[in-house]
Each structure stands twice: as C-alpha cells, then as structure tokens.
C-alpha cells in the first residue's frame, strides 16, 4: 500500500472537480490539492455536454428572471436560497472561463453570444458552437496545468472513504496501472464524480457514469437527496443514446410525430409558430417534452423502429449554413453514428436518460452533513435543479458550486489539525477486502453483464418517465435479489494490471446501491412533480411533498427515507405555465 497526504482532495476531474481544484489553488495557494480520477481529466463526461451554459449577461435580462425560470422549471422543489446564489455568481464564473480562453461563440462585435434554451424566458445560454462541454472541460484542464500546487492521481479508482471520529479524513483508491492500493489522507474531500445514468439501459451518459461518489458518500453515512428525480432528455438517437442537443430546437428545430405534426401543441405547451418562441412548444422543459412523447406513443402516433418507438426532429429548414455554424457537432454525430445528413433528412429521436437531479445532500457551500466531506456538480444535490433541471444550468452549476465547494473545503482544511493516522488501519482492511472479494475470488456463477442488464431493465420498467407503486415495489424486490446475486459473481480476471473487470464489478455494486435509493425514494413520494410522474398519484401535493427526500443507508443496507422542507425565499409555489 502506498500512502499520500494532502490538504484538499478532489475526486473527479470534470467541470466541477477542476473548478474546485483551481478555486483552492487560487484562494488558498499555501494548501496542497490533489485531483484523483478513474480517468484522465479530459475524458470526464463534461466533455459530452453540447448546448451551452446559462448566465445572465445581456441587457434586458435579470437575475430574478433566471431564478424564476429555474424554480418553475424545477416544479418548486429547488431551494431558492441556492438558486439565488447560483444566478448571482454564474456571470462571473462564466466570464472567468472566458478569460481562461474558452472559445465561446461570439457576436459580430466580439461580445459573447447567447442562445435560447428550453424553459428559459430570455436568451441567456452561452455556447461554444454545440461542443460547449468539450471546450469548457479542455479550457479548465489546460488552465489547471499552470498551478503547480495541483497534483493529480490519474486513473485511480476510489473504493472507500476513510472516516474517523465522524469526520472524512481521506480515501482508499486502486491505482489502475499497477493494482496497488493507495491510501490518501486529506483534511477535506470533495466528491465531483458526476451522475449515474448507467443504472438505466438507454442513456446519453458515458460508460464511466456509475455514481461512484454518490455511493461512496451514501456508504460512509452522508445521505443522498431527491434521488427519485431522473431526467429524460427528449432527443437521443435510438440505439446509441447519443444526445442530440436541445440547441437544435433553440435554433428552430421541430418535433414531429409520424404524421409530420408538431404534437407538442396537444400537451399545453403552446401553439406552433414558424420561429422558436421562448418557454413554448419545442422550447418547453425536458420533463414535459419527454412525457408528451410517452402520450404520443400511447396514441400510436410515434414511428416504429428496431430500437423502440421514435419521433422526428426536423432541422432541415434551418439550412446548411446555420447548421454548420451553430450545430456542427449534431451534423457530425448524425453522419458518423446514424448515417444521415440532417441538412437533408429528419433525425429519429426518443427520450433518453440524461441527468440526475438528485445527489449527495449538500448545503449551498457544497458541505455535506459529514465534517470534511464536500460535493459539487451532478454528484451533489444542492438543490438548484429541483424536480427537473433546465438545460444549460448544469454546466454553470459545475463552475459555481465547484468553486464554492473548493473554497469551503479549503477554509475547513486550513483550520484543521493533521488527520488521525489511525485511519490507515481502515485502509489496510479495505485492501484485504478487495483481495478477498474480487482479486483472489474463485468460483461464483454470475456475470457482471447479466446482473447489470437485469438492473437496467428493472429500472426502466419501474422508474422511467411514468411510474406506479406496484412496479416500483416489484423493482425493490428484484434489486434486493440482484444484491444477493452480486455476492456470487464469477470473475475471469485476476490480474493487478489495469483490471477493468474489477472496476466493472465495483461500479456495478455502486449502481445497485443507488438503484435501490432511486426506487425507494420514488416509491415513497406519492405525488407527481417534475420528472417524477406517478400514474397512481397524478397530482402535485405541496401539502405533503414540498420537501426533499433524504436517503440514509440503514444498518441492513436498505435505504431509509426522511424529508426536509424546501427553502422558499421569494417565489411561493405556483403553476408551471408554458406556451401562454
């Protein structure tokens, strides 16, 4: 076992993690900061984000407008103090990224350009063509290279948090190249590991999105919040689940059913106009658009394909020039992965699991309930996103709350005595567990892929766009069985060098825990709100559920759900109105 130590330890090198690390380096330059990630930072899933990042910068827009769009988009489950901090700090964080070299698309006069986005009443989404996440991530990564105090442990897989005296004091990781166990002692740990879309069979998420940080926190005793809220993006390519950005609709794209009809007009989302109208039709929020697809499917008005039903996204009328300047990646993705040219053909799309509104419960500084443990980005739930996130808020969230968590963790770390070396004993125990449970394990009959597929199928059946109590209950039983079968895993690979079967097993075990939390939280929320739609409880119930679900891991390993009231500051719960 190798032992390291640092002041602030950031897990994950995506948008939130790098923002956190740079914030520590900028504001507390005397502290040492380490970024540990199971991939090289530029492989992080931030890279796949396309459409843009929201922040108020133009005349005629205002912070209150951004806040209201976010809160109503989240069906009033957002904490409004967090939203207010978010919209207030967003413009400076975005400008900072501009100063660091992010190649934002521009107006002819050289100012940063903005585009409309779903659920936003004003154009406020900054964009770098349709590769915004890619450019933001590479800008952050390249900028992080200039800080000598930022050290990296690339391709190291975190298996356990070290907790002593009720405080997080570091973690245990597996160095993939060598199979060596690392114990990293730290005064504060920030989890920035992103979401867990891979719990579902059809997702835009990369293969690395297994909720590692969420599961690590949950197992260590820090609760998860609002995990029942799973966002389906309305436009993914069938089979691959590749995201076709909302920017296609922001630029004027139409969603058409099998009759070529703009069906969103039938779902209280407005009346069709030739040009895009803000907060209307194709620029409605993602939850409502994905639900409309399901209703169209029930009516038999979707198209049939080998990978399920789909509708058409039509951007042909935008013309080649607009597509090539504003949506070049969409054209490239369609050509390379779907064999079609959106300049000439309609794009087949269907709803696809995209984002977790829930995550590790934090306050507005990114602090969890456990001293020394912080979280930000998709892994965290602050919550600004409530029951449904608006497109282009998540990249900005990574910047704002990444930086906030970095500064809060640094302030905490600079005030702490040296961690207790006795946690190293726990690290040795963890090393022995990994050896016994996986590396030297023989026998077993279950394959990782089989269990993973069964988990994904049960999640889609029970915790998809529409849910009901009995399917969720069956799913809870099934997941419990899968947990038991996991103990009987058969492993082909006993090598210490880059053992991706071992990491696959660990990822599956993280996802099984989180699947149980999603199902338990969904089962207990007997109302419909945002992305959580219960056929058996179709109305929103503010009397009982204007509250966050908070999931703890009970002694027997199953989730225990409590509720926490939503923080309302200036926007009392109201009706969500789109298109009128």
């Amino acid at each position, binding site marked *: 076992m190798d032992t390291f130590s640092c002041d602030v330890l950031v897990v994950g090198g995506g948008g939130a993690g790098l923002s956190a690390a740079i914030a520590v380096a900028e504001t507390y330059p005397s502290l040492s900061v380490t970024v540990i990630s199971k*991939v*090289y930072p*530029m*492989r*992080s*899933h931030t*890279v*796949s984000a396309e459409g843009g990042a929201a922040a108020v910068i133009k005349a005629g827009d205002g912070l209150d407008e951004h806040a209201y769009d976010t809160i109503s988009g989240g069906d009033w489950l957002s904490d409004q103090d967090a939203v207010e901090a978010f919209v207030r700090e967003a413009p*400076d964080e975005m*400008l*900072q990224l*501009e*100063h*660091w*070299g992010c*190649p*934002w*698309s*521009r107006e*002819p*006069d*050289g*100012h*940063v350009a903005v585009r409309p986005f779903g659920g936003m009443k004003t154009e406020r989404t900054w964009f770098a063509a349709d*590769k915004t996440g*890619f*450019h933001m991530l*590479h800008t952050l990564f*390249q*900028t992080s*290279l*200039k800080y000598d105090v930022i050290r990296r442990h*690339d391709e190291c897989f975190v298996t356990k948090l070290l907790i002593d005296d009720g405080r997080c004091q570091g973690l245990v990781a597996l160095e993939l*190249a060598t199979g060596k166990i690392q114990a990293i002692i730290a005064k504060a740990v920030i989890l920035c590991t992103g979401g867990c879309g891979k719990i579902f069979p059809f997702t835009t998420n*990369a*293969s*690395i999105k297994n909720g590692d940080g969420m599961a690590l926190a949950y197992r260590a005793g820090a609760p998860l919040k609002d995990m029942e809220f799973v966002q389906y993006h309305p436009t993914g390519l069938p*089979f*691959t689940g*590749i*995201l076709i950005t909302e920017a296609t609709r922001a630029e004027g794209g139409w969603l058409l059913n099998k009759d070529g009809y703009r069906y969103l007009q039938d779902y209280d989302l407005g009346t069709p106009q030739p040009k895009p109208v803000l907060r209307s039709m194709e620029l409605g929020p993602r939850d409502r658009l994905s639900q409309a697809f399901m209703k169209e499917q029930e009516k038999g008005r979707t198209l049939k394909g080998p990978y399920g039903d789909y509708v058409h996204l039509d951007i042909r009328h935008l013309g080649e020039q607009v597509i090539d300047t504003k949506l070049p*990646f969409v054209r*490239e*993705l369609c050509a*390379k*992965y779907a064999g079609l040219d959106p300049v000439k053909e309609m794009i087949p799309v269907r709803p696809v699991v995209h984002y977790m509104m829930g995550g590790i419960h934090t306050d507005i500084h990114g602090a969890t309930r456990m001293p020394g443990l912080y979280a930000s980005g998709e892994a965290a739930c602050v919550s600004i996103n409530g029951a449904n996130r608006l497109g282009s808020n998540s990249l900005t969230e990574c910047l704002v709350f990444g930086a906030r968590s970095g500064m809060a963790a640094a302030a905490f770390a600079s005030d702490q005595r040296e961690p207790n070396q006795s946690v190293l004993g726990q690290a040795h125990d963890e090393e022995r567990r990994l050896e016994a449970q996986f590396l030297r394990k023989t026998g077993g009959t279950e*394959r*990782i*892929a089989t269990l993973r597929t069964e988990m994904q199928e049960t999640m889609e059946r029970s915790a998809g766009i529409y849910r009901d109590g009995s399917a969720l209950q069956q799913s809870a039983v099934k997941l419990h069985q899968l947990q038991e079968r996991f103990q009987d895993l058969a*492993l*082909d*690979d006993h*090598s*210490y*060098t*880059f*053992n*991706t*079967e071992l990491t*696959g097993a660990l990822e599956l075990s993280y996802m099984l825990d989180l699947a149980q939390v999603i199902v338990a939280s969904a089962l207990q929320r007997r109302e419909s709100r945002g992305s959580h739609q219960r056929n058996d409880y179709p109305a929103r119930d503010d009397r009982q559920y204007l509250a966050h679900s908070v999931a703890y891991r009970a002694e027997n390993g199953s989730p225990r759900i409590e509720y926490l009231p939503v923080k309302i500051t200036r926007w009392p719960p109201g009706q969500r109105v789109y298109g009128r």
Partner: protein
Amino acid sequence: MPPTVMLEVSRYRPEQDDKPVFQTYEVPFRDDWVVLDALNYIKDRLDGSLSFRWSCRMGVCGSCGMMVNGRPKLTCAAFLSDHLPGPIRVEPLNYFPIMRDLIVDITDFLEKLKKVKPWIVRDQVLPLEKGEYRQTPQQLDVYRQFSQCINCMLCYAACPVVGLEPGFVGPAAIALAQRYNLDSRDEGAKQRLKILSDHAGIWGCTFVGECTQVCPKHVDPAGAIQQYKLTGALDTLKSFLLPFGTR
C-alpha cells in the same frame, strides 16, 4: 451479410505474456455495430479479462483510440461493416508503451502537453468587472480548428517521427500550442516558440501529413508544425541579423 465476424485482438498481460499475442474471437455481425461494440460483446459475454479504455461512445472523450487493421481509429466510430469480410485486427496504438491488452501508457504525452503552456498567457489580466475580452467571429476562426483536439493520440500513432524520436513533442501538443498562439487573447507565443524550438524533433517532421489524415476532428497538426517551422526559422534568422533583439 455474414452472421458473425472474426476479431483478432492483441492481448498482453504482463504477468503471463512476454510479448503481445493475438487472440481470435467470433462476434455477431450487426450493421450498426462499431468495433467498440464488438469489444464490449467480448468483454460481457466471452472473456471478462479483455481490457480496453472507452467512455463516451460519441467520439469526443478520446479514450478508445486503437489500431484497426493497422490504422489508428476511434473504435466507437469504426463500423464493422467498413471492415468486412474480416478478420478485423485490433491492436493498441502504435509507438506507445503497452500496459495491458489494448491499453497504452500516455503519461509521456501528458507531460509534453504541459510543456507547451496550453493556457492563456498575458502580461496584464483584465479584471472580471471589465467584462469579456472582445473576440470577433473572424478572430475565433483563426484558431478554432486547432481547439478541436480531443487528445485521442491517433496522430501520435500515425507519426513516423514519434516512432523514431521519442523526445518529439508531437503533433497534438504542437497544434495545441498553436491554438493558444493564434488566440487574440493570448500573449505567450514567444515563450512557446522557445520551448518548441529547443525541443527535439520539430525539425525532424518531414511533412508526411499522416497526423492530419488520421485526425477524427479535422485538426491540422501538420499545418501547425509547418507554421512553427517557418516562424522558428525566421526567428533564428532574425537573431543572426539583429543579435541585440528585435525590440
């Protein structure tokens, strides 16, 4: 269409193999499958010990570069149907040390990347309250192409100079340096030129242009290198003619 296709996959497990060996697997052929799907089929169903990197499956994370029938490719974008009848040979990227199976060691590249100072260098930093640096769409177009690199390493695996001269900073790093040099917000070109001209290899580039041909993102590293050589040569010339500097 064939019902199955054969894959010859390079295996190297340092604990048991002295050198890489090929292992053959038969996988179902499907029209919409890429080589990466076939590798995942093998890992999930046939042999859990096969190791390779992958993540986004949409050609932007840069993880899944491998040699497919001898050419560097992103395996998420390499369709089985373009490589029929098979067998399809899958190997780790050329010129990199092999760690395990299809996984290569890229730590050396990460160090080279840092050497070229890929960040905005300025004497005077604009305070945030002054807003953004103005940059017109035309100014953006000057460097935009070089900002598209996803660090997938295909250009290194295609570059004959990388094979001969391990110290060569390489196509992607040079293109990235040029991305910042050409950015209207940056003032670091001089520092980067010194780093690059002191560095082994840039003069060895023979402009074969293989790097540009294999780039999945249409970056033109070969063009960046030629631009550098020209600027570098001019600077050397200037230092002879104006030994006390050009200021």
